[in-house]
């Protein structure tokens, strides 16, 4: 089973996640799409670790997971704060930087 299949799958998942970030309006769903992208990267890392027969890729994937977790925590806390202030969780509503 060539790792290239895994990498291809990772690419597809990554692109799907990217489209989701651009298209969805609910902030939580956007976060979830970002998580999807990160997972796709993890998959690619693990596939390459297998390809090169060393564990560095897995260690990197591990760190990615940790960082993703931290990011989710902080991001959702921010989202909660915004929701409390503005009663809206749509990313389109934060458009004060409009021209």
């Amino acid at each position, binding site marked *: 089973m060539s790792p290239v299949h895994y990498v291809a799958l990772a690419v597809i998942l990554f692109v799907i996640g990217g489209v989701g*970030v*651009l298209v969805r309006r609910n902030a939580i769903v956007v976060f979830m799409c970002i998580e999807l992208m990160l997972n796709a990267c993890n998959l690619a890392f693990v596939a390459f670790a297998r390809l090169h027969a060393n564990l560095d890729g897995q260690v990197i994937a591990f760190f990615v997971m940790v960082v993703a977790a931290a990011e989710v925590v902080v991001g959702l806390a921010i989202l909660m704060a915004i929701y409390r202030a503005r009663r809206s969780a749509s*990313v389109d509503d934060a458009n004060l930087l*409009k*021209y």
Partner: protein
Amino acid sequence: MTTLTAVADGAAGSAAHALAATLTTVPATGALKLSWLLLAFPLFGAVVLLIGGRRTDRWGHLLGCAMPLAAFAYGVIAFFTLLGDTDRSQDQHLYTYILVGHFQANVNLLVDQLSICFVLLITGVGSMIIIYSVGYMAHDRGRRRFFGYMNLFLAAMLLLVLADNYLVLYVGWEGVGLASYLLIGFWQERNSAAVAAKKAFVVNRVGDAGLTVAIFLMFSAFGTVSFTGVFHQVPSGGSGVATALGFLLLLGACGKSAQVPLQSWLLDAMEGPTPVSALIHAATMVTAGVYLLVRSNPILAVSEDAQIGIAIVGTVTLLFGGIIAAAKDDIKKSLAGSTMSQIGYMTLGAGLGPEGYVFSIALLLAHGFYKAGLFLGAGSVIHGMNDEQDMRRYGALARALPVTYVTFGLAYLAIAGIPPFSGFFVKDPIIEGDFTEHGAGGWILGICALIGAGLTAFYMTRMMYMTWWGKRRWAQDAHPHESPPVMTWPMIVLAVGSVGAGGFLIINDRLQNFLAPVVGVPPVEHGFFTVAGGVALLLALAGIALGWAMYGRVPVPETAPHGSPLTVAARNELYGNTINESLVMRPGQWLTRLSVYFDNRGVDGLVNSLAALVGGTSGRWRRIQTGFVRSYALSMFFGAVIVVALLLAVRL
């Protein structure tokens, strides 16, 4: 040593015709070493009076009279010194003005026969007129300023005639132009005076352009602008250069001497006070052009075409001025037309080669006396008649202003060419010279000059009848009175000159011999009573008779009658102003308006459109900032895609 290279025969022809005088100068010695005093006196007076301001008001006029008299005194000393010396072209070096590479122009004062004649004329007649102004301007608040400007003028004119190179001559040329502007517009509060001053300056400028280009040409052709340098090199320079120089110098002379086509400013210049008209626009400044031409005679000697051109200009002008003078009712404007005509004679003389230079200068000197006398007399009448200048309001003034009447009358006889007064002696040789020079064309010039002589007598007789004789046509409140002595004595002195100057200069060829080293010797000797002279005298008498018939026998109407088309044209100065306006002024205005239009639309449009472009583009582009996070995310995504593409492109 002055050297004189004489060519033997005086037959008509280009090179053989010219009896060229080459100018060689020696450094000044003896009393002539102080020749800078001639400039220093009036300049000092001008500086003190103009910078001193109101403080000098009380004694300003005295200083203003003293300085020209001092300059005249030195001029007399210099004249007699020069007579005694064998070297009569003496050059006094003052300082080096320009020294660049091979080009050098010094401020040197050239005292030779020609310049000493002018010095005596300028300072002598000038002193008389300035003394006269003490009385004429007695009630004017700006009298001190007037004397300052007059002294400034004298300094500039003296620099003009004493210069030994064309560049310093040009400095003096511009200086007299400036003084003329200041003096014509002396009564600044009058709009007409200010406009006339500006007009004089602008028309002069056209002529100055000619002189400027001539100096450029001299520098590029000969590498020098000093008289000696240029005159030594011009015979070898080729007739093309000499012709060009001749015509350019003629253009300069036209501007300064009010010859056709640059004559329009002279009649307007009568807006200035009468002493100004007498000094500047009769005796001295307007003769600067003639001085230029006579001084440049070695250049003219090489170019036959330039001489013909000068003669034609002079002839046209003498008829032009005469016709205008015969129709004008303002006494000063009529005298201005007369001045234009007489200078036309002088220019005509300058176009005749060595034949005419001497007589041109003789006419210039005599004219200085009698025209100044006429103008001062006119000023006396104006002063006595409460500033009335229209001759139709004069009449029968002979009893009321006797001294003025006598001096005016003597000057009248002089200008009309009646022997034994000045005009007869100095005008006839020029007319005679017309017929002997320039072949068949010369005959046409001569006939025109004869007609001009008759015309001169006619309009002067008209002036006499309208002013001094006949019935009185005064205004209600006019009580004409004679002028005070400070005004009459200068007139008397000038009248003496009017009577005797011509004979003095011409009899025994006195002036001719004196000026020979500078201007050459006429190839043919003249007697006094020649055929042409006789015809001229007859025409003058005819003119006087015609004047009597039109103005003496018939009472002069108080309002000007409609007159023939020629009269109407002459009253409009032969449409000289109209021609100037339509040929030059209106196109100039259109050009200005066009330029303004292009500047506003084109240049400003370009700049504004650039600004509008920037503004518009930024107005469009700012809409990219929608404020939506997802748009920003999209652009980031695209950026990432582009980066990957580039990395891939590098790798592939």
